[in-house]
């Protein structure tokens, strides 16, 4: 259940780095997202989720952890 970021959709806003600096960085070259920690533990994971919800390019996904209950459709 890894945190993933799609560089093609990234608009290099840096929002994710401001929200969860333990999880995301920006490349020096083009400012696009770099994932530093793909498996953050709570509460950092919560902030990664906030970064995903806010991402202006909709480039970030933070899937549900296995321990978290899944929707019936996902079982």
């Amino acid at each position, binding site marked *: 259940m890894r945190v993933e970021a799609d560089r093609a959709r990234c608009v290099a*806003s*840096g*929002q994710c780095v401001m929200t969860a600096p333990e999880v995301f960085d*920006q490349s020096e070259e083009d400012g696009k997202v770099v994932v530093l920690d793909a498996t953050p533990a709570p509460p950092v994971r*919560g902030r990664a*989720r*906030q970064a995903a919800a*806010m991402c202006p*390019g909709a480039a970030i996904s933070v899937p549900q952890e296995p321990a978290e209950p899944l929707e019936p459709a996902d079982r």
Partner: protein
Amino acid sequence: MTAPAPTSAPRLPFDRPNPLDLAPLLGRLREQGPIALVTTPAGDPAWLVTAYDEAREVLGDRRFGKAHPAPETASKISSAAIQSGPTGSFEDEEREHARMRKVLTPAFSAPRMRRLSGRIEELTERCLDEMEHARARDPHTAVNLHDLLSFPLPVQVICELLGVPASDRDLLRDWSERIGVLDGGGDAQRAMADFQTYMGRLAATKRDRPGQDVVTDILAVQAEDPSFTEDDMTRLAAGLLFAGHETTSARIDMGTLFLLSDPARRDRFAADPEGLVQSTVEEILRITAPGGLGLMRYAREDARVGAVTVARGDAVLVAINAANRDGEAFADPDAFAPERTPNAHLAFGHGGHYCIGNALARTEMRIAFTALFRRFPGLRLEVDPRTLREHSERLTGGVSTVPVLW
């Protein structure tokens, strides 16, 4: 849906009762549907998007841009000298936008802003010292937070970033105020012309003696791109200074009004500023609503929004302040609740035009609110915030007095 005649459509900016609450008409329009026809301050027709989902959709959709296929026929938004109508070339919009982002992204990146934190903290502490001096000089008078912190802090930071001499501060303040007046007309244009002339002269000195600043970065890119005109360059630099003067300042003022309008809320924050500042700043960004218009776009082609078809060339104003108080997206939307998760507000927009200065604004706000309540945990307002006047005549809104005591 049949669009009503433009003349009958309500005219922006709508009346709002005070700086904390939104114009009631925004809420009424949103209840009727996500998008409505309105009249701009310039008297032209435009669509106003008030619902969260549709606001986010339009801002993230490349069919809505800032250029216009036939600019002379476009709806004017206002007679300010900035964000008042279409900008740039319709054919080259994507390329010009990519060029601008490429120049500015490294200069305003989150890691760069983090490295700037120490300097911003230093400048903030100096502002707070000034507040203490003012209070000591005249113990019976409230201190105006706007004049001593909210305004000077972002200005000093943006001037240092751009490499603009602090001694020219009064000139810059005057131009920034005048270019954003919604019915500014000729005076706004003259201020913009003076602002651009100033930036042109500054650029000339930096071409001779490059500095470590954003203007120098812009000049380096301009030197390699013949289509990057002097007008483009001076407009971009003036726009950055304008944004640095007017936007973060309003958020610090209005955020303080929200924090101080309920003593229990203030005490909770003052008990642990470092721990609460990140979520508190995001909630301040969501709930504060400076300015009465919204983000300006023009449809590049016909596009469906809600139940209406926005025709190619139509002006669209995305009322992010209204979207940020949409009960469909935020539970109890008028309540100040830093604990809400996620808090995916649209204060910086969404999509490819997301505010390039967001990391700077967030850094400044986090530092300012932390330091302010560390120094003055008992800070309070001298007046009821609902009696203060918002500058609805300005593009960026805001207040000019925040009288505080401690």
